[in-house]
């Protein structure tokens, strides 16, 4: 008859061999000599000492699997009770997208004050952290301390201190413009390289980030893309200054009506009318004669 300690060691060893987790039936096969009662006792002991965790089997939600905790984990999770662990696992499952406390309440079935208390504790022990989402400025979401928040959450490189960084974007636009002007013709990879070299951005900008900047320039009518065949016969889009510029002004917009903010409200004989129009007055007063 093996001692309790030895059974625990054996179970842990088996679990470590299966880092993705192991089902109870498999465990039974691996340890044929251990009687079921001993195994159950050992597993309970391991679970309560946080050396082992029990999880729902992702492949089959009706069963569950055991997973060995790493050595350090035991120390990290010391003095955490089952409810704390429940919240922790809930946060862990959310990955780098994070989870909102309301959603946590639903998943764990714990009352909100309780969750808040647990979260405070977990945060103090640097197990989880809270991140502000750019999509919902009022919502705080929680994720594991060691994770990097997802791009959707932080808004990618375009967000400074929680706010949209318009300044940064216009600086990038100007830099890209001046580059295209100096080269008269540039591809996406040219522009990415150029931006990397200048070091305008603290974060490294990916191709699709730069592509978005280029697209805004295109929508502004400042550049246009042309498909050109490169040396390998692939079609590559080259960006250059547009042949047809959007005219700076038109006959319509060079009179007050064209840019009038109350154009739709203007009626002859009304409060706003061409005869009493202040914009016309100042436009006509500008004349020197």
């Amino acid at each position, binding site marked *: 008859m093996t001692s309790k300690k030895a059974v625990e060691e054996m179970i842990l060893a088996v679990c470590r061999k299966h880092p993705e987790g192991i089902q109870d039936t498999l465990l039974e096969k691996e340890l044929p000599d251990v009687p079921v009662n001993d195994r159950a006792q050992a597993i309970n002991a391991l679970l309560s000492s946080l050396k082992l965790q029990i999880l729902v089997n992702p492949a089959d939600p009706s069963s569950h699997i055991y997973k060995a905790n790493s050595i350090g984990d035991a120390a990290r999770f010391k003095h955490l009770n089952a409810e704390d662990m429940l919240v922790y696992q809930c946060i862990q499952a959310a990955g780098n997208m994070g989870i909102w406390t309301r959603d946590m309440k639903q998943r764990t079935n714990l009352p909100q004050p309780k969750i808040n208390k647990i979260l405070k504790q977990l945060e103090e022990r640097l197990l989880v952290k809270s991140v502000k989402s750019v999509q919902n400025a009022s919502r705080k979401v929680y994720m594991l301390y060691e994770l990097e928040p997802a791009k959707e959450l932080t808004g990618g490189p*375009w967000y400074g201190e929680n706010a*949209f960084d*318009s300044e940064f*974007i216009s600086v990038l636009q100007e830099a890209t413009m001046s580059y295209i002007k100096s080269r008269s013709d540039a591809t996406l990879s040219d522009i990415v390289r150029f931006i990397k070299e200048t070091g305008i951005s603290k974060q490294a900008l990916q191709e699709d980030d730069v592509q*978005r*900047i280029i*697209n*805004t320039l*295109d*929508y*502004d*009518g400042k550049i246009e893309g042309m498909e050109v065949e490169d040396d390998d016969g692939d079609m590559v889009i080259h960006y250059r200054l547009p*042949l*047809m510029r*959007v*005219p*700076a*002004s*038109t*006959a*319509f*917009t*060079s*009179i007050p*009506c*064209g*840019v009038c903010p109350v*154009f*739709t409200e*203007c009626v*002859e004989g009304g409060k706003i*009318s*061409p*005869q009493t*129009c202040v914009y*016309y007055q100042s436009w*006509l007063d500008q*004349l*020197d*004669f």
Partner: protein
Amino acid sequence: MAQAVAAPLPLPANRGPYAARLALKLVEEALGPLCRAVLKCLLDHGMQQYGDLARTSKLPQPQLRAGLLVLIQHNYVNVYLKQEPPTLRGPGPSYSLYEAALPRILQGLRMPRFLTYIMDEHGPTSQQLICTLLEHGRLRWDQVLGAVTEAAAKQEEGEDGEEGDGSPPPTPDVVLNQFRSLVIERFIERVPPCTLPPPAKQVHPNARKKVATPKPGSEEEAALHREQSEALVRQAYQEERFQLPADLLGGQPGKAGDEYAGSGKAGDKRKRGKDAAGEEPAKKKGRKKADAAAAAADEATAAGGKDGEKEAESVLWRVNYDEFNRRFRNEVIVETVKAKYGQDAGNAVLGLLLANARFEASAQTGETVVLGVNEISSALRRQYGNDLVPEHLGEVLSELSEDVLQFLEAHGHGPGGEQFVMNIPQVLNLARLLELESVVRNKFGEHGMRIWRLLFATGQLEQKQVSDMAMLTKEEAREKLYAMLKAGYVTLQDVPRTADHAPSRTFYTWRAKLEPALARLSSDLYRAAGNLHARLMHELDRNQELLDMLETPGISDAMIQRRTAEIAKLKAVTSRLEAALLDLDAQICIFADV
């Protein structure tokens, strides 16, 4: 041939409420409040008979008649003869229908541009010819000649010693020659006869139904025959629209000139022409076989006791605005193509348009006819010599036909080399699009244009996608989108997930489409032109006393001296407003009239 190309439906903008408002203003300014009242009635109630007009306008008969006649004289009202189908008792009744010629009234704004154009192309005599016709609406040849020679003589007198260019007044021969070439170039046309049947109803292409061939002897067949014979009458007018009568073509112009040289002033003639036309409503009740022009001329010649045999005497002429619009349109097209595809492409398209000119019945042509390379190059050569013909015209054109814009379609080989068809609205829309984008930028800022172009390029987007893709803050994107929605340049569609259209369960997508945005801009243009005109009239009214003073005969210099500043200010203000109106009209031309 011209009928082979289906003309697109007219843009709604030049019939919209703002166009009508501007038209009323223009008519009131030019012809007075009576004509305005008559026109308003015609605009409000559409095409109608004289009796209806009398009822709805509530004007006393003589006034209404005078107003209507002046409007007809100036071609501001179209007259049609409606023939009702025959009944068992005999031939059906016929009556005249009156319709406001809205586009023509609105294009009256463009007269200075017409005159400048004709001055550049054909010189002062032609300008005087066109000017006379514009001033009087419709005139017979002898009236035109009289007015032109008289004006030339007056100019000579007034300018002697000053900056007279030394050229002698044009002889009748010269005037006739100019007149001929203006008719041949379609700047001047015959006035449509008032026996013309009303225009066929234009059914939207989507609403057209396939009608089976009617059974012989049925009511439908009779209707079809009537329609066909009406179409023939219209066709007959189209055929002789730019035809010179034999005696103007090759007769003795000198004689014709002599005959009329001394016969009264242009003003008299105009009045006489009007009086003659005045018989029209009275005659309307009787059988109406001869056209109005002929009737008018008959009256006139009968009164003068002259021989009514000569055809030229019975033909009334007027300026063909469409020809000018067509030329302005071609300028825009050529400029656009030149800017986008270079000089050679521009010249090639210019040749294409020149070759197509004789097949066009209106400025609103959809597609050109199928044209061969040889035709195109010879048209270009005829007009501009060899300099403008690109070296490889065929290649230039086939390259253009492969462009993504797809405005030029290759139509295989024909007797004249490779053949092409150009889609005119496609190119025009490119030019319009640029103007539209500029308007959006000026109205809603750089970021507004970014959003508009983004939506235009991508079709439809949700608000959040807009702010993401345009890289703007949510707040700014929302502000711009709603401003553009209010102004009518973008549209918003709701896509409900549930039947109750609850906002929380509904997607809202934004779109920017070319046609609605262009229609909105066109209507805005008319509205702005109306405002400009209103302000101009207001400024003139406000300074009425000053204007009266200047017109007072024998006003002392000292009085004028004292108010120099005021006069200069009024001059500056009115000329700025007038210039803005002209510029705006040039833009209207591209958006609404071609």
